[in-house]
C-alpha cells in the first residue's frame, strides 16, 4: 500500500492506532470523503438518528469501558447538534473525541452552506478543541486529541476538519511522539501530604469517605476498597461514583445529597474527617455550602488542581491520580496501623453505632401498593434482576433518583447517568453505546416518559443494530421532577408538566419491528420484566406507575443536607385540571 493517502484515510488510520473499534455518527456533505473511506474500513460505524445522540452514545461507550468514545458529525447543524453531548461529557469528565467536518478552508468565513463556527462554539464545551486546515497537522492532532481526552481529568476533545483536508493527499508516516508543552498533569501525589492524610485518618474519631466519579475514571475502585476496609470507615458514593465501592459492601452507606439517604447526609454532617476522593463538592451534594460538613476537616484528592478549594477549602489537598494516590495511602495507613489504629477505637465503634442507627431510623425502603406500581417497586424489581451486575443507563429526573437509590452496583462502569449537566434524552443513546461495547451484558435503559420521547429516534438505532437493550419506561404521565418542585414550592400550580399523548408502546414497538409491552398491575410487573429479559433483541417496556409520587428524602434548595424532608408534607393533591 502506498503511503500517500487522503486526509480521511489518515484520520481512520490514526483512529485505528488509538484502538478505536466503533464510531457513532451521522454523515453529511463535508464528511463525504470520510464516509467514503469508512465504506470498507474495519472500524464500525453506528448510524445514530440525531447527532446529539452520537455524543451520548460515545459517552455511554466511554462510561461503560473507560476507553475513549468517538462521535462524528458533519459541519453546521451536525456540529451544533453535538454541543449538548459535549458539555455533558465536560461536566462528567468523560473521555470522548468528536470529529466534525468543516467547509473547505477557502470558504471559511464566507457564510458558506452548512458553515458554523464550530471551533468557537465548542470552546467552552470541550476540554480542548482543534480546527485542522492543514493536512500535515492532521495525524498529530488526532493523537493529541486522544491523549488529552483520556489523560488527567478526562473530557471531550473536538477536532473540526475542513473538507479539503479530508480529501487532500499527503505522504503519511505514523506519529511516534506528540508535543503538548503546556499540558502538565500531576499524577503521583505528594508523598508528605499522603502521609499526613493517613495520619489524619487514624487520628479521626468520626471519619467518613466521600467517593466520586474520579475513582471510576482512575480505575481506583480496588484501592478505594482497600482504603475503606483498612480504615473501616463508612463510605458514600456520589451519583457519579455509584459502583466505586460495591453497593453490597458493608461499609457502603448510600448516595449523599439532595436525594441521598438520611444516613448518608447525617454522616456527612456529623463526621470529623471528610475524606473526599475524586469529587467536586457539587451543589447537589453539599446543599447549603456554609453548613456542609461543619465539624469536618477535609482531605481532598483530585487530579484537577482547580477542583481543590473551588467550593470547599481543603485542610489537606492532594493533587494526583486517585489510583496512584490511594495505593500509596493504603500502604501508609497499614504501616501506621499498629501504632495509631487503637487510639480512637472506642469512638470509632460509637461512630459506627450512630451511622447504623441513622440507617435503621430512616432506611431507603421500596414502597409497594397492591393497586398501583410504585416507582420504587419498579426499581426494586430491576435491582432484583440485575443483582448488582447489569449496566443501567438513565435519563434525568425522578426515575434517575429512584434508580440511584434502589439499584445496587457491585462494580464500576455499570451505572451510566448524566450527572453534572442533567441532560434528558441521555439514557437511550448511552445504552446504545454501552451495548455496542458490551454485546453480552444486560443493559437496562431506565428512562421517564419525558426523556424517552426526547431520544425516541434512537429506538430505530436499537432496531437497526439489533441491540438487546431493555428499555424500561417509568411512565407517570408527568415530567415528574419538575412537577415535584411545583408541588412543593409553587403551590401545586402544575405548569406544562403533564405529558399527554404518550404513544402506545406496543404499537410503537411493532412499528419499529421490535417487541414492546405495557404493564400497569403490580402483580404483572415481575412477569413483564421477565418477558423483556427473555425476549431476544430490543424490548420496550412501558411501566405505568403511580402518577403522584415524589422522591424522598429531599433536601430543599438552599437547605443544609441534614435538613431533609423525609416524607410528603401533606397528601399530594391531585389537581383539578
Amino acid at each position, binding site marked *: 500500500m502506498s503511503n500517500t493517502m487522503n486526509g480521511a484515510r489518515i484520520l481512520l488510520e490514526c483512529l485505528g492506532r488509538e484502538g478505536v473499534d466503533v464510531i457513532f455518527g451521522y454523515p453529511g456533505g463535508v464528511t463525504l470523503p470520510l464516509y467514503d473511506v469508512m465504506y470498507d474500513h474495519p472500524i464500525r460505524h453506528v448510524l445514530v438518528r440525531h447527532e446529539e445522540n452520537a455524543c451520548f452514545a460515545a459517552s455511554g461507550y466511554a462510561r461503560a469501558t473507560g476507553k475513549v468514545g468517538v462521535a462524528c458529525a458533519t459541519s453546521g447543524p451536525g456540529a451544533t447538534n453535538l454541543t449538548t453531548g459535549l458539555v455533558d461529557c465536560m461536566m462528567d469528565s468523560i473521555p470522548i473525541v468528536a470529529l466534525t467536518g468543516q467547509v473547505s478552508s477557502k470558504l471559511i468565513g464566507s457564510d458558506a452552506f452548512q458553515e458554523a463556527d464550530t471551533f468557537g462554539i465548542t470552546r467552552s464545551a470541550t476540554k480542548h478543541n482543534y480546527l485542522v486546515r492543514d493536512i500535515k497537522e492532521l495525524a498529530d492532532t488526532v493523537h493529541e486529541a486522544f491523549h488529552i481526552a483520556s489523560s488527567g481529568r478526562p473530557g471531550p476533545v473536538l477536532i473540526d476538519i475542513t473538507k479539503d483536508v479530508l480529501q487532500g493527499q499527503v505522504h503519511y508516516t505514523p506519529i511516534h511522539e*506528540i508535543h503538548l508543552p*503546556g499540558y502538565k498533569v500531576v499524577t503521583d501525589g505528594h508523598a508528605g501530604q499522603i502521609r499526613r492524610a493517613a495520619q489524619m485518618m487514624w487520628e479521626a474519631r468520626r471519619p467518613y469517605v466521600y467517593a466520586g466519579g474520579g475513582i471510576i475514571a482512575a480505575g481506583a475502585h480496588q484501592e478505594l476498597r482497600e482504603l475503606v476496609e483498612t480504615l473501616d470507615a463508612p463510605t458514600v458514593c456520589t451519583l457519579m461514583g455509584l459502583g466505586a465501592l460495591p453497593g453490597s459492601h458493608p461499609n457502603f452507606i448510600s448516595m449523599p445529597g439532595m436525594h441521598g439517604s438520611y444516613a448518608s447526609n447525617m454522616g456527612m454532617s456529623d463526621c470529623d474527617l471528610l475524606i473526599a476522593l475524586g469529587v467536586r463538592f457539587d451543589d447537589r451534594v453539599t446543599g447549603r455550602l456554609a453548613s456542609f460538613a461543619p465539624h469536618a476537616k477535609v482531605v481532598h484528592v483530585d487530579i484537577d488542581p482547580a477542583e481543590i478549594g473551588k467550593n470547599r477549602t481543603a485542610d489537606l489537598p492532594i493533587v494526583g491520580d486517585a489510583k496512584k494516590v490511594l495505593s500509596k495511602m493504603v500502604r501508609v495507613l497499614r504501616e501506621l496501623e499498629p501504632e495509631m489504629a487503637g487510639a480512637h477505637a472506642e469512638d470509632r465503634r460509637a461512630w459506627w453505632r450512630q451511622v447504623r442507627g441513622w440507617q435503621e431510623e430512616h432506611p431507603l425502603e421500596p414502597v409497594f401498593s397492591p393497586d398501583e406500581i410504585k416507582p420504587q417497586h419498579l426499581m426494586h424489581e430491576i435491582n432484583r434482576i440485575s443483582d448488582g451486575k447489569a449496566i443501567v443507563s438513565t435519563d434525568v429526573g425522578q426515575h434517575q433518583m429512584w434508580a440511584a437509590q434502589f439499584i445496587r452496583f457491585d462494580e464500576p462502569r455499570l451505572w451510566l447517568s448524566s450527572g453534572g449537566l442533567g441532560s434528558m434524552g441521555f439514557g437511550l443513546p448511552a445504552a446504545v453505546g454501552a451495548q455496542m461495547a458490551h454485546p453480552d451484558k444486560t443493559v437496562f435503559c431506565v428512562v421517564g416518559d419525558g426523556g424517552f420521547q426526547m431520544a425516541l429516534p434512537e429506538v430505530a438505532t436499537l432496531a437497526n443494530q439489533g441491540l438487546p437493550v431493555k428499555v424500561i419506561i417509568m411512565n407517570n404521565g408527568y415530567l415528574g421532577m419538575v412537577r415535584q418542585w411545583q408541588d412543593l414550592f409553587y403551590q401545586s400550580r402544575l405548569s406544562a408538566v403533564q405529558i399527554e399523548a404518550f404513544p402506545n408502546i406496543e404499537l410503537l414497538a411493532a412499528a419499529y419491528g421490535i417487541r414492546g409491552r405495557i404493564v400497569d398491575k403490580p402483580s404483572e410487573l415481575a412477569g413483564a420484566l421477565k418477558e423483556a429479559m427473555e425476549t431476544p433483541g430490543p424490548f420496550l417496556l412501558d411501566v405505568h406507575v403511580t402518577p403522584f409520587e415524589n422522591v424522598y428524602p429531599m433536601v430543599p434548595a438552599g437547605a443544609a443536607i441534614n435538613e431533609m424532608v423525609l416524607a410528603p408534607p401533606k397528601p399530594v393533591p391531585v389537581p383539578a385540571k
Partner: protein
Amino acid sequence: MLMTISLLMENKPGALMRVTGLLSQRGYNIESLTVARTLDPTLSRMTITVDVDAKQRAQVIKQMNKPVNVLQATDLTDAPAVLREMVLLRVRATMENRTAILKEAEIFGARVVDSSVEGFALEATGDSEKLEEFIAVMETYGEIEVTRSGMVAVSLEAKKLRLAPPIPKAHGEPAVPR
C-alpha cells in the same frame, strides 16, 4: 480587587478566544488585556487585569493554567514586578494655555507626539494611578480624547518555566482491512 496575571501561551489560532472565553465563563471581569508575541514567535505573552474577590485569586490562576495551550499563568498582583500602561491623549489647546499644558505634560514625563494649532497629542507611560492623575489634570484644560493600552507587566523574579516533555505514542497495529 484588581488582580494582574501574566500568561505565557502557545501562539496558536484561537489562543485569545480561549483566554477571554474562560474568563467570562468563570465570571471574572476583564479590566484590561494586552497580548503580543514573545521573542520566541511561537509564544504569546498576555497581561490580564481582572476584577475579582481577593479570595478567588488562587482559583483564577488554577483556571488560567488549565487550557492545554497555556504554558504558565502567574499572579503578579503582590509579586515583585513592574507594571506599566501607556496612554495616548489628545487635548485641545488654546493659545493661552499651550505653555501650561506642556509644563504639566513634562511633570508627568509625557512626550508630545503631535502638535497643531488645535492642540497636542501626548504620550505617557506609568502605573495606572499616575496615568489617571495625568488624565484628570489634562481634562481641566478642556476637551480631551484618551486611548489606554491596558497594563503590561514584567516579573522581576526569574520563574522557572516547567514544560511537559514530549509524549511517546505507543501504537497498536493499524486496523486490518476487511
